[in-house]
């Protein structure tokens, strides 16, 4: 079939939605827009019955001779934050909310260092725990600096949903959500030992930072075991 033989009635320009005249296609009542109309799609398909352009076949011969570039699949999302000097990550699906840092109301007779106290999240009291105490992270000692009114602390409260309970913990900084594939996850170095190694499922190397992806279930089990 030749291009010259093709007779295309561009009814969408004539009486369809792109019409300039007064005549209106009666099918518009049923299909509302020409793109829903079988006449439109049939004409579109007819346009493909034209001769392919020059080089079309040789170009596709080259493309098909190479392996198909597969898009990365099995992409997972992790929520990245900083606690002290360590960059850490948790599976993004468990993050309920990130709120501005507020006062942590301590409780008398605290059973452990893990439980920091209670925080006010949208008017309800939630338990606030310390991730750093479980992982054995050192607190960065704040150096005495001159008071700078323009300084905004990057500290945030992260609220996670764990076993239908909300638990909050303070972080030094929130980076955001990153996406990774399981291949990007490296084993933690053997030099990492103790509780940090127990709760780390892998290391992600991103933008020059080593981010430890935490095992959410064992970590929060430990964090919440004292007040279940």
């Amino acid at each position: 079939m030749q291009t010259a033989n093709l007779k295309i009635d561009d009814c969408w320009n004539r009486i369809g939605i792109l019409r300039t005249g007064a005549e209106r296609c009666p099918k518009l009542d049923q299909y509302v827009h020409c793109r829903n109309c079988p006449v439109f799609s049939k004409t579109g398909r007819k346009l493909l019955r034209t001769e392919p352009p020059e080089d079309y076949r040789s170009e596709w011969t080259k493309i098909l001779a190479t392996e198909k570039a597969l898009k990365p699949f099995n992409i997972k999302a992790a929520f990245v934050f900083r606690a002290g000097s360590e960059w850490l990550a948790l599976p993004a699906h468990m993050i309920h909310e990130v709120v501005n840092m507020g006062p942590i109301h301590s409780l008398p007779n605290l059973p452990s260092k893990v439980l920091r106290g209670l925080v006010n999240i949208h008017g309800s009291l939630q338990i606030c725990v310390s991730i750093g105490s479980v992982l054995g992270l050192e607190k960065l000692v704040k150096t005495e600096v001159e008071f700078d009114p323009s300084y905004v602390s990057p500290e945030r409260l992260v609220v996670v949903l764990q076993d239908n309970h909300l638990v909050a913990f303070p972080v030094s900084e929130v980076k955001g959500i990153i996406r990774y594939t399981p291949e990007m996850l490296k084993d933690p170095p053997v030099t990492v030992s103790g509780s940090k190694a127990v709760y780390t499922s892998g290391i992600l190397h991103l933008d020059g930072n080593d981010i430890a992806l935490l095992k959410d279930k064992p970590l929060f089990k430990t964090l919440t075991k004292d007040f279940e």
Partner: protein
Amino acid sequence: MLLLLFEIYNGRYALDVNQIIEIVPLVKFKKIPTAPGYVAGLMNYRGTGTPVIDLNQLMDSVPFEDALSTRIIIVNYPVRNKGDKPLALIANNVTETVRTRLTKPPPAGVLMDKSLYDGEITPETSEMIQWFDIKKMLPENEITLLFEDEE
């Protein structure tokens, strides 16, 4: 069942998409000198030499349309003792798929346009659509020979 609709010369055919690996545009083929006329040649499909069957030549002894809508359907072809191998089929007007309520091939091997569309869309024609059975409609013995040279 999702069906691919295509044409071979004047007939319309439907193929179950589960048998399809990929639909690709026409490419250049390497002729096989002693092969029957309907074997258009070999194409380099993702690094493997894949036999190309010209369905127009096979069914009606006419060449395929040189058009953008003429495409190559790469199917999983069960080769005896060798498992599924990719096989390339050239068909005209490979432009449409339909979702049907069919769960198995129609008894007579023929579908009516009406039964395809389930009454949701008015069929364009009242033509019959032939069920394309890659096992029955392709000459199995000769195609098996095309895969013979492979180790």
